[in-house]
């Protein structure tokens, strides 16, 4: 760990006990967008983010559409080849194709839309069995079958569901199938990309509880990406906030709600519609002016300066460093001390 040649800000020097499961260093993901004849410009979907994910924790990743949270999740799993930066899994940097292959038996993904992420022509058994086939995890068909039934039990599906097709299930049950598929290779890390946002309120709670139970039972680590801040707070130990491809704040989930430090986090937290009329009447909302700039024309300096009530000349020129302001609290704001003082 210590002979790292990384120049990026290193968030924590992990103690032996709190060895992070995954370290993300200066991760960048640019997409080339055609802007005209033979012209293209990079869209900086994820622009230089660094953070750690501790073993056994749930790290929530929040932000508004276009902030790069989904891209970050996918790039961490190497579903996209990172433009720059490193993903370090259990102290080993993922570099070659073999590394990626190997990494994918430890890290999987649950997708947002249970209606489009499951092949309608495959039975549940084959959907869950596919990762087992790809990674040659079983020795004979009996073992495959047993493993599939075990996985279905984990997520609360009956063995009689195995021969059915995805369209025969409700949204909540489909998401259970998606989770069983993600669990097939016995991963220790799962990226959950908006796993409950397509579900009805009464079903959401079932799935959220299942994530909790599976974590306890199987010792899983989650990167939980969502835009519903109440759900994220419920499930996460720590929360990271992204804005226009940058990470602006990272803190314990209770802290970030009760005392957000970054001006954007403040606005985001105050915008959450709390299901409590009295609290809603008392809430002093910070209303942001303006729109989120297009990531193609991201402003220079701090990406938030166009909408920030505290922005000054320095903010328009210089990107603030993502620094540890208090122990375990990271924030990227020049004026964090001033405005929180």
């Amino acid at each position, binding site marked *: 760990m210590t002979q790292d040649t990384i120049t990026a800000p290193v968030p924590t020097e992990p103690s032996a006990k709190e060895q992070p499961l995954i370290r993300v260093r200066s991760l960048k993901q640019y997409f080339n967008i055609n802007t005209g004849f033979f012209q293209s410009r990079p869209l900086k979907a994820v622009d230089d983010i660094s953070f750690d994910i501790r073993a056994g924790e749930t790290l929530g990743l929040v932000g*508004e*559409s276009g902030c790069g949270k989904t891209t970050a999740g996918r790039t961490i799993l190497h579903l996209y080849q990172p433009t720059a930066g490193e993903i370090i899994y259990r102290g080993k940097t993922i570099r070659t194709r073999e590394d990626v292959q190997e990494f994918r038996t430890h890290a999987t993904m649950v997708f947002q839309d249970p209606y489009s992420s499951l092949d309608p022509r495959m039975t549940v058994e084959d959907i869950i069995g596919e990762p087992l086939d790809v990674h040659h995890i079983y020795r004979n068909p009996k073992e495959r079958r047993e493993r599939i039934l075990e996985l279905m039990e984990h997520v609360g599906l009956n063995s009689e569901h195995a021969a059915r097709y995805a369209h025969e299930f*409700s949204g*909540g*049950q489909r998401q259970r199938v998606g989770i069983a598929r993600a669990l097939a290779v016995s991963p220790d890390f799962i990226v959950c990309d908006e796993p409950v946002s397509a579900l*009805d*309120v*009464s*079903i*959401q*709670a*079932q799935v*959220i*509880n299942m994530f*909790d139970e599976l974590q306890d039972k199987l010792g899983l680590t989650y990167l939980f990406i969502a*835009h519903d*801040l*109440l*759900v994220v*707070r*419920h499930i996460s130990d720590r929360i990271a906030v992204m804005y226009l491809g940058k990470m602006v704040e990272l803190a314990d*989930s*209770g802290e970030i*709600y009760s005392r957000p430090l970054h001006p954007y986090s403040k*606005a*985001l937290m*105050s*915008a*959450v*519609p*709390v*299901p*409590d*009329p*009295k*609290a*809603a009447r008392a809430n002093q*909302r910070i*209303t*942001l002016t303006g*729109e*989120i700039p297009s990531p193609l024309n991201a402003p220079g300096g701090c990406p938030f300066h166009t909408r920030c009530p505290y922005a000054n000349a320095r903010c328009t020129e210089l990107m603030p460093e993502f620094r540890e302001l208090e122990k375990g609290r990271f924030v990227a704001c020049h004026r964090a001390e001033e405005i929180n003082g």
Partner: protein
Amino acid sequence: MALLEVRNLSTSFFTDEGEVRAVNGVSFDLERGRVLGIVGESGSGKSVTAYSIMQILASTGRIVGGSVRFDGQELVGAGEKVMKTVRGNRISIIFQDPMTSLNPTYTIGRQLMEAILLHTDRNREQAHERAVEMLRLVNVNEPEKRMKQYPYEFSGGMRQRVMIAMALACEPDILIADEPTTALDVTIQAGILELMKDIQKKIGMAIIMITHDLGVVAQLCDEVIVMYAGAICEQGTADEIFYNPKHEYTKGLLRSIPTASNTDQKLEPISGTPIDLLNMPKGCPFAPRCDAAMKICIRSRCERMEINEHHAAACWQNLREEMLRAGVEQKGGEQS
């Protein structure tokens, strides 16, 4: 007399698999200047209720019973001619998806003016003026310039503002908002809700807010209707519904959402799966998922019962509690 009186409204869709009773005996009043929230999950009938009021149902759908009286006039069976004077003029509606509700080939200005020219006697110049005024009302910057732009030049939040401007251009008595912020980000959503609140105060129209998000209801609504399987479970003031729920479904919903106070606890989900409208149970539609279901719940559907002046619910539990209370009082009386 209330501005809108809905009585026993029932709407069905006639599909190949049979009759789907999407709305089943819904009754409520809406007073002038009030904000009514209708909450429920997908398939609860909340949107169909609104579409039935506006009579903009899909071709397979039909109002099969009940009445909708708007400002003293019966709308069910009144005919398309009457509806045309009401729709978009005195009752307006905005939809969930601002991306698809605007015509991409016309300028924003043209689309705004279309509504104004259709429903009022203003000439083009006055209509243009009115359109600019409306854009200003919904806080769109540089309205004159924006009038000449096309929908693709607007962001999602801005498009929803344009939809609101369009819906309000004829100063309707009622604005129906069908999940107006569901497709938007939280900070944009907060802005739109704030805007609706402001305008509601300024113009004094009534709003029917249809949403699945109890948070949105808490921000905006005076009164709330909770729907399940096409019927009203519970209705009352927002405070009554949130702090004194009297239907097992409402209680379950409130327990199952993450809030500030239950972060460290496990959520209590509602068990089971959403109802199949083609196979409705005989008794209370929520009974198969209800932890507190009694024999009577499975046998027969509970009628609406008054809890107090501001609150009514259709749940047998309330009758049971009342009987228990009466029993206790009686016993107490005997003893003394």
